[in-house]
């Protein structure tokens, strides 16, 4: 059993070496999903958008000036995702920034801000797409932030600070990758082995870029949070006071 997975991972590594282009965080590209699945993922994501947006409206009604901060927060997440990270495999990869965003701003706000970032990535760097926005938003702007936030809330105070931040960021990244693989597997089940085999297949293909990426992003987020605690304690406090961490 173990040997079998080793071979699958090796095969994926071979595939990746042929594809030397640095891999971004996974986004499903325009037109890749069949219409039915594109609609399903929009339907799943829309409730999160509605609740997140209502919360944003409430925050802004109380403090109109927070909208400027929120605008910069979305831009910050976008720019962070353009940051090149050193990755174990040698190629550079890019963080998703959703783990850090969820820790700073809360998961509901992040589901809207993250979706704006995804829309911008589709419209400004041709990464992702409009019809697949629902699916991408679900994996990156909903599941990722919620996983990060649950870990952050559940473990804070019970484990060392660095470990909590690392787990929150790395697992947010990993969950995004697992959900995307699942989305691909559901849309394109393996003719021989069905959805489960397809999931293992897509998972193995992307594991080689995504697992080192999750580790790098975890380490980076720990370092960023440490630096923020020493350099920007006042700003962090102001965020909590302003009620942005909903």
């Amino acid at each position, binding site marked *: 059993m173990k040997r079998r997975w080793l071979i699958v991972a090796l095969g994926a590594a071979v595939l990746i070496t042929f594809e030397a282009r640095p891999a971004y965080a996974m986004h499903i590209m325009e037109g890749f999903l069949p*219409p039915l699945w594109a609609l399903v993922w929009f339907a799943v994501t829309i409730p999160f958008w509605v609740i997140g947006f209502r919360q944003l409206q409430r925050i802004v009604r109380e403090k109109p*000036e927070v909208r400027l*901060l*929120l*605008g910069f927060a979305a831009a910050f997440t976008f720019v*962070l995702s353009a940051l090149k990270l050193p990755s174990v495999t040698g190629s550079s990869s890019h963080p998703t920034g959703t783990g850090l965003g969820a820790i700073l701003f809360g998961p509901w706000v992040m589901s809207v801000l993250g979706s*704006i970032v995804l829309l911008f990535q589709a419209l400004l760097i041709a990464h992702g797409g409009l019809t697949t926005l629902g699916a991408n938003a679900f994996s990156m702007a909903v599941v990722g932030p919620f996983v990060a936030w649950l870990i952050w809330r559940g473990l804070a105070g019970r484990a060392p600070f660095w470990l909590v931040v690392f787990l929150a960021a790395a697992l947010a990244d990993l969950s995004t990758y697992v959900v995307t693989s699942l989305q691909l597997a559901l849309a394109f089940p393996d003719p021989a082995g069905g959805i489960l*085999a397809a999931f293992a297949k897509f998972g193995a293909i992307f594991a080689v870029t995504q697992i080192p990426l999750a580790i790098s992003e975890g380490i980076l987020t720990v370092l960023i949070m440490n630096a923020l605690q020493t350099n920007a304690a006042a700003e962090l406090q102001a965020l909590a006071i302003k009620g942005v961490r909903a």
Partner: protein
Amino acid sequence: MLRIIDQYAFANRLRAVDPLQKTALAGLTILLCLALDRPLVGWLALGWMMAVTVWYAQVPLRVAGAVIGAESAFLALSVIGIAISVGNEPPATALWAIPFGPLWLSATGGSLQTALHVLSRALGSAAALNFLILTTPLIDLIELLRRLRAPALLIELMALSYRALFVLLDTLDQMVTAQTARLGYASWRATLRSSALLGSRLFIVAYQRSQALEVALTARGFAGELRVLPLSYTVDRQLWLIGVMIAASLVAARWWS
């Protein structure tokens, strides 16, 4: 890539054309690609949209090609995933099967067909999306959302983020240059440390910039709403005609194949 796309979005021949018209053309092509769902339709859409982008909107082929090339990275990996099946034994209908340790990698006629099918559909719709983003600046699209009565807060957040994006990106570039000049990216460890410093400083810069904007707006009597003048656009009749031709040929390709 970001700056190149943004630059051509502002400097192509269709810059002044109503964003609604360009969005309608791209959207219609994407919908037809998804709804008609035939390989020939996808390839035809790819050809049409590349041609419109390069000849009609006069975006250099080099740029349009680079954008679609970058998108193919994800596509290549996923299409391989669809084409090749992994199982404990090869399916009876396999075209070819290679034993790979205890596993069998195989491809059937059906799986290859699905892969080719998805490849054409994705390339066709991606070319349509690229046409839109290479001819229309994001502010025009935000303006279009305003006309379509999207919530005011969403519009404002998008407009603010779009502006903040370039401010932060310029800051990022300067910081990276400064760090590189001081051998900040000389080793793996140094790269990680520099990236962390970059990320945290960038957060502080973003926060301070937003505070500065707040002060500046308050000084000018900010009452909780940002108002900007709408731009004026022209309607390009020829583009409508091209759109009708594209739609007709895509539907024809569906019945013919």
